[in-house]
């Protein structure tokens, strides 16, 4: 089919307008009435009709975007919270504690005895303790 033949077939799709004059008169009157109403609304302070008409599309777009954006923000907030909770913090190095086994003795006692207390100043019970400790160590 050539371009001309195809165009001729397309033109047949247009058909013929079988509308009478009354149809067109009514449409023209409707347009005039609608325009007059828009103009009256604009004049009465209802805002610029052009802006109102254009605003419809913008409001529709904003409503459409609001849902997914709110969801994305909520997800981001949840992720941030999760990261903070599970953030690995290095535990402070534990200070080595001096722990004495129950059967160990502290030569210098825990009563604030002077560390440099001379052995020859120890009394008999203390000497016994020392001896026992030395035997253990051996």
């Amino acid at each position: 089919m050539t371009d001309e033949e195809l165009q001729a077939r397309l033109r047949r799709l247009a058909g013929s307008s079988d509308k009478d004059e009354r149809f067109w008169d009514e449409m023209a009157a409707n347009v005039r009435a609608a325009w007059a109403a828009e103009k009256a609304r604009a004049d009465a302070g209802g805002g610029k009709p052009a802006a109102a008409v254009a605003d419809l599309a913008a409001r529709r777009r904003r409503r459409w975007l609001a849902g997914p954006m709110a969801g994305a923000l909520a997800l981001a907030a949840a992720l941030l919270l999760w990261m903070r909770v599970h953030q690995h913090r290095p535990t402070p190095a534990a200070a080595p504690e001096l722990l004495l086994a129950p059967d160990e003795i502290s030569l210098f006692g825990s009563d604030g005895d002077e560390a440099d207390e001379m052995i020859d100043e120890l009394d008999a019970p203390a000497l016994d303790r020392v001896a026992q400790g030395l035997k253990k160590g051996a």
Partner: protein
Amino acid sequence: MARPKVAADPKVDDEGDERLVERFRGGDGAAFDALVRRYQRPIFGLALRYLGNEADAQDVAQRALVQAFVRVADLRDGQSFRAWVFRIAANLALNVIRDRKPEAPLCDDVAVALAREPVVEEEAQRRLRQAVTRLPPQQRLVVELRVFQELPFRAVAEIAECSEDAAKVNFHHALKKLRVLMNEEEP
């Protein structure tokens, strides 16, 4: 209550669009009426071919004309009123198509008009009409303006907001695509 008839004024009807728009902006009601009468038929025809039923077509045509006048302040210098109103009508028609439920069948007043055609010819025309609805929006607009509105490519380009060469290329691609689509639909 019957609306007052929009009277024809031969003197005004012969004026060019630019002059009529200027007079309309100055508050001349006769200029408004002349523009409405000049464009209501082609706009209705465009809407009917896009939408397939008269009720929707009438609604879109009326809204397009109202919008064209309400927003006439947005008409750029040098832009023709014809391009302006056709573009508004095409966009409104595409919005209606987009908002239609996919399963809603088209009410085919155009097919009824073709019922006088022989059966085989009607089937071929039906395929062609379906193929036109499947064209991309810009190609469909170019076909509508060039074939149905019989506008020169310069005017088509202005309405389609492209260069004249691009309009010709679009038209050529549209015809090519129509052939492909029609072959796809052949039983």
